[in-house]
């Protein structure tokens, strides 16, 4: 993958130029779908865009010292990591890639949660600390299943390159892995039933309590880009192979849209679970999926 292709993927498609409007679109779809399923009207179409612009115009409290500098840096790191993750997605058939870019994608998908945890602790407010602790516990729980599922899909097909994974024919193991990833997505995206770090009545917006203005706009943007990256990963793993690039792009967007609707339905149908129930759910119920996936991956490698 040469520099031009890399820059095009990072900046144009599926990079920033596509991902930022797609992030706002998916955020709106989630809010509107949840509202309609609850019998309400919901926000108008450009609502996340107006929220972003309005936040850019607000003032921020003064931040002093190294802690203040770190507080200002975390949202930008989160946005760059999420944008990089979106840029790595193998949407188009001839997009190239390199061996091991799956590992890079997983690392970049992890960074926004790490930034949220770090931000809560560096904000110096007690609500931030509690929220970060909860986010850390949540992250440990769902990541085991998430990483095991992806690694088992990769290991069974003998490759760690995203392009190779996306454009190979699907095995039954891949569907098992996709289901496991879908179960982890509500926790990754802070949706009900695993929306614990955002528990407003309990901890006043958790890690984000002290953030305001443009920093908060960056956090919202990183959340939207996380939506695009996570649903895009599932879409590329689940999509059939097409040779025409625009058909592949359209199918990618349509699949992402379907996954967003599915996640919104789950979010509208459930209530927030407590931390012990969440951890028990991921360690007891979904671990079996991940163990099955790893076992069948090993089995397929031994047979091949």
């Amino acid at each position, binding site marked *: 993958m040469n520099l031009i292709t890399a820059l095009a993927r990072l900046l144009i498609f599926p990079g920033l130029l596509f991902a930022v409007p797609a992030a706002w679109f998916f955020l709106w779809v989630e809010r509107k779908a949840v509202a*309609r399923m609850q019998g309400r009207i919901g926000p108008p179409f450009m609502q996340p865009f107006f929220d972003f612009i309005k936040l850019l115009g607000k003032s921020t409290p003064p931040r002093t010292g190294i802690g203040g500098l770190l507080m200002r840096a975390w949202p930008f790191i989160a946005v760059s990591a999420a944008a990089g993750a979106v840029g790595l997605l193998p949407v188009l058939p001839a997009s190239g890639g390199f061996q091991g870019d799956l590992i890079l994608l997983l690392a970049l998908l992890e960074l926004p949660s790490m930034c949220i945890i770090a931000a809560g602790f560096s904000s110096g407010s007690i609500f931030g600390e509690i929220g970060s602790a909860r986010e850390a516990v949540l992250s440990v729980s769902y990541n085991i299943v998430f990483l095991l599922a992806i690694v088992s899909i990769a290991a069974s097909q003998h490759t760690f390159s995203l392009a190779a994974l996306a454009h190979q024919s699907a095995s039954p193991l891949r569907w098992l892995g996709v289901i496991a990833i879908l179960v982890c997505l509500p926790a990754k995206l802070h949706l009900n039933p695993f929306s614990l770090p955002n528990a407003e009545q309990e901890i006043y917006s958790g890690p984000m309590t002290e953030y305001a203005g443009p920093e908060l706009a960056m956090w919202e943007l990183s959340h939207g880009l996380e939506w695009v990256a996570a649903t895009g990963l599932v879409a590329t793993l689940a999509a059939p192979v097409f040779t025409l690039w625009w058909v592949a792009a359209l199918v990618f967007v349509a699949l992402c849209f379907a996954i967003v609707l599915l996640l919104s339905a789950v979010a509208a149908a459930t209530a927030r679970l407590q931390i012990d129930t969440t951890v028990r759910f991921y360690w007891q119920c979904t671990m079996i999926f991940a163990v099955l996936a790893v076992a069948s991956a090993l089995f397929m490698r031994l047979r091949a």
Partner: protein
Amino acid sequence: MNILAMLWKNLWGGPRTMLFPKRPVVTEHFRGQVRFNPDLCTGCAICRFRCTAKAIEFKAGKGEFTWSYDPGQCTFCGRCIEGCKTHAISQDSECPPVYTTIGELKTSYTLTRKPPAKPAAAAPIPAIPASGETK
């Protein structure tokens, strides 16, 4: 699975929201603003006495009085309407509007005192029998 059926019905059944700025029709006995009819007021100030929130103010002058009402202070309990003998104040179902300055909604009326109506020629009081005979 009931919740999923409910979500499906909500999704295709349409929203139940009233589009802003449409407001719902209130019920018949909704307690809204107090309305004053200056023609019927006799200046007894019972409404000021009964008001729980001191929303009604009454200043008595020479031959005239000032009655004022502030919907921003009112708690819409209705005690003043119960106390008024001449039904000069009544309560309708309209909510007071949103305002931006304190005291903006206060209304005052200055009325001259009407001379009390002379009672019609009274019937003569029947004479009490002196000897205590029963009727």
